[in-house]
Every structure is written in structure tokens, then in C-alpha cells.
């Protein structure tokens, strides 16, 4: 059995939190560049250029690309043949986030109590941590710094099976249209279909961890992703909602089996500050 230490997890998480906020993924930068070629709005082009410049500044000066450095969301694949020595994996991740956010001058954006709005004492913790047990002896940590503006415009609905594919498409387009400028387009649109109430939301979140341009492995979904992307870009919302043809940089869909009476659909919007990092231990 392989042993991975608590301390190693803390260090790696701390580092990935900073990298997520400073180094925008190449997939996103390339999506900006290709959008710039297709955008017909002058203001829209201007915005895309500024976003490319902003990503450059963040990278070279080691500052966060956006002041909302987000809630740290983790999907951790833990190999069932590996042993974590020195403490719980949840504590290790939270300690890593606290360290990374404090030392990286990232913003502390968590309140402990959603009603009283009392600020949390752990710097930007607790994080949201999903653990998936997998075969093998490795740990793969996927991290996202998820912004509040786009999360706030996300949505879930229990459709009726009779609503079918048309109902699903309409719901996704309506959610994007309603979000308009608030979710900081251009967006990455994550969609979950099936599962149950809570699983469906998780599927949408999980889909956002797939790099831009990577299509679903299921041909019918890959096709639907492309089709939805075209439809969304016809809405006219454009960069920052100021009009244009770049409303989404990508659409991702994940599906799972569900109850015979159910058709859960969720749309998790991500802004252009689509910050994801991965480490393998």
C-alpha cells in the first residue's frame, strides 16, 4: 500500500490554489483567441483583448486574474489502495487552501453562517470537497476556484420526462439568457442531466472540470454540446452581456441514469475566469 502524507497534500493544494488564480489555463486563453476572430462586436472584441491582457498580467505579476478568487471546489479521486498518513484528507485540503490563499494574497470570501453572514475564521475555508473512491494507489486532486457571480446565476429544475430534449434545451437557453451579464460571459456552461436532485447538480459541476474543447465521449452528447453552443451564441448576449456573438466558450454535458418518473436538469454556469488545476500524487 502506498503512503501519501498529510503534509504533501497541504503543500500541493496550497500551490495549486495560487496557480489556479494566477495562471489561466491554456485552453481558456486559446478560446479567447479564437473567439476574437469570430466576434463581430467592436466592444466585444475590445473586451476579449482586455481579458487576454488581464490573463498575461496575472501570470507575469503573480496576481489573481479576478478579485473574486472564489470558493475552492475539489473533486478528489482517491485510490483505494493508498494510505493517507498524518491526518484526514479533508483537513489537509482545507489547510492547503488556507495557506495558499493567505500566502498568495487571495481574497477570503467565505461566511460561516449563511443567515447571520458571520465571516469564517479559517481563511477562505471550508472548501467544498467531493471524494470519489477509485481503483489504484494514486490520489488525483482536481481544484476549481469558482466565482460567486456565475454560481449565483446557476439553476436546477426537475423537468417532466414528457418535456424531453426540447424541454431540456429550452431550460438551458433560458438559464443562460436570464444570467445575461451577471455571470461574466463569455461562459462555460456545465449541464447535468439525470441522477437525482443532488446528483444532478454535481454532474453539472463536474462537467466544468473538463477542459474547453474536450467533447463528451458519448457521440449523442458531443453533438448536443455543439448544437447548444451554437444556439447560445445566437442569443446576442456577447462578452460581458454587452452584445455580440461570443456568449459561451463551451458547453459541457454529463448524464446519469435516473428514476422512471424524473428528468432532473441542472445548469452550472462558469465565467470566463474558468480556473481549474489538477495534481497527481
Amino acid at each position, binding site marked *: 500500500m502506498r503512503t501519501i502524507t498529510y503534509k504533501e497534500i497541504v503543500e500541493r493544494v496550497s500551490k495549486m490554489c495560487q496557480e489556479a488564480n494566477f495562471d489561466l489555463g491554456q485552453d481558456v486563453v486559446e478560446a479567447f483567441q479564437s473567439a476574437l476572430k469570430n466576434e*463581430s*462586436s467592436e*466592444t466585444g472584441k*475590445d*473586451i476579449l483583448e*482586455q*481579458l487576454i*491582457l*488581464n490573463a498575461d*498580467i*496575472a501570470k507575469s*505579476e*503573480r*496576481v*489573481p*486574474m*479576478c*478579485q*473574486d*478568487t472564489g470558493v475552492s471546489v475539489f473533486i478528489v479521486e482517491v485510490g483505494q489502495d493508498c494510505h493517507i498518513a498524518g491526518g484526514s484528507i479533508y483537513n489537509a485540503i482545507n489547510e492547503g487552501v488556507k495557506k495558499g490563499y493567505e500566502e498568495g*494574497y*487571495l*481574497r477570503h470570501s467565505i461566511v460561516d453562517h449563511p443567515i447571520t453572514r458571520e465571516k469564517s475564521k479559517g481563511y477562505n475555508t471550508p472548501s467544498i470537497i467531493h471524494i470519489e473512491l477509485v481503483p489504484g494507489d494514486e490520489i488525483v486532486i482536481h481544484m476549481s476556484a469558482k*466565482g*460567486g*457571480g456565475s454560481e*449565483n446565476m446557476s439553476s436546477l429544475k426537475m423537468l417532466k420526462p414528457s418535456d424531453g430534449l426540447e424541454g431540456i434545451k429550452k431550460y438551458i437557453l433560458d438559464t443562460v439568457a436570464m444570467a*445575461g*451579464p*451577471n455571470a*461574466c460571459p463569455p461562459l462555460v456552461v456545465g449541464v447535468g442531466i439525470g441522477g437525482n436532485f443532488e446528483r444532478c447538480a454535481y454532474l453539472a459541476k463536474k462537467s466544468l472540470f473538463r477542459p474547453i474543447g474536450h467533447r463528451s465521449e458519448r457521440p449523442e452528447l458531443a453533438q448536443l454540446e455543439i448544437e447548444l453552443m451554437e444556439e447560445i*451564441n*445566437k*442569443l*446576442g*448576449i*456577447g462578452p*460581458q*452581456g*454587452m*452584445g*455580440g*456573438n461570443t456568449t459561451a466558450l463551451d458547453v459541457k454535458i454529463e448524464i446519469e441514469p435516473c428514476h422512471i418518473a424524473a428528468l432532473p436538469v441542472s445548469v452550472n454556469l462558469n*465565467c*470566463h*475566469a474558468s480556473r481549474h488545476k489538477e495534481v497527481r500524487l
Partner: protein
Amino acid sequence: MCANKVSSPIDEQVLPSLKAGDRVLISGTIYTARDAAHKRMSEALQKGEDLPFNIKGQTIYYVGPTPAKPGQIIGSAGPTTSGRMDKYTPSLLDRGLKGMIGKGYRSQEVIDSMKKNKAVYFAAIGGSGALIARSIKSMEVIAYEDLGPEAIYKLTVENFPAVVIIDNEGTDWYQVGKEQFKKQADQ
């Protein structure tokens, strides 16, 4: 980029020339305030107290920056969602607030109050906080220091990039811009 220069505080004479959709570069003094500071200002007004700064002609920027690194004036400082401030905004407009910088939709009440009081709403590019920080030349806390990053700061800005979203006639660029490109896509 072709953009009009705007100075803040905003001169009432130039206000009508700022039209929805115009790209602008703002220079001068602006004040930061987000949820907690708005709540406190609104409570002060309800109690009949003065606001912590003279708001006549001024511009408020909805922002909660990241902590500054050593040697920096301010950390990343892009706009936050303006809609959360809508509840408090009309009372500030009634007292002479002329400009707001944020991102996202405003409520009909805010738009009506902007028309009545003659004010303008700008959007900065959400998620471009590292770039925007370059146009911020000084930062000084002036009220509610205990709120930390949510306190009211006075900022000096130079060529701060923004777009006029709602002008003093109530034209909303989020609607106009979208319709224009939607029509294009439908053709």
C-alpha cells in the same frame, strides 16, 4: 480603442453626452462600496445621520479587492455584481450620487431613479481585476475601516476602462446590445 474621457466627480453638464454603449476612460476620484458599506450607509440615512462622504456628483465603484501584495497600491480590483446594491441605490441617487461602476443588471427602481436624478451606470469588465488595478493610482480608507476590504475607500483612478450601460435617459445597453446581435444572428 476609441473611448471618451470622463472625469469623476461627474459634471452635470457632460452627463447627457454619455450615451448607453459608449466606451469611456474614467479619471479622477471614485469611492468603493459594496454590500456591507451600502447597508451601513442606508442605516445612517434612516437614522437621519450624514453619509461618511459628500456624495454630490460622486461615483461609487462596487468592488471588494484582493489584499494588496507588498509594494502594490491595491490587489485585483474588478467589479462585483451591482444588483445586490439595488435596494440601497435610489436613496443615494436622491442625495446626489451621479455615477456607479459595477457589472450586471439594475432593477427598474434604480433605472427610474437614475432618470429622475440624472445619473449614469457604467460597467467595468468583470474578471479583469489585474488589468483594472493598473488604472488605480491611490487608495485611502475613509469610513467603516472595521469592514476590511468592504470598507469605503477613496480611489484615484486614471483611464479606468468602462462602458456606459444605462444612461441618464434610462436606455439600457444590456437590452439594446443583445437585441442588435440577436437580430444579426437570426438573419
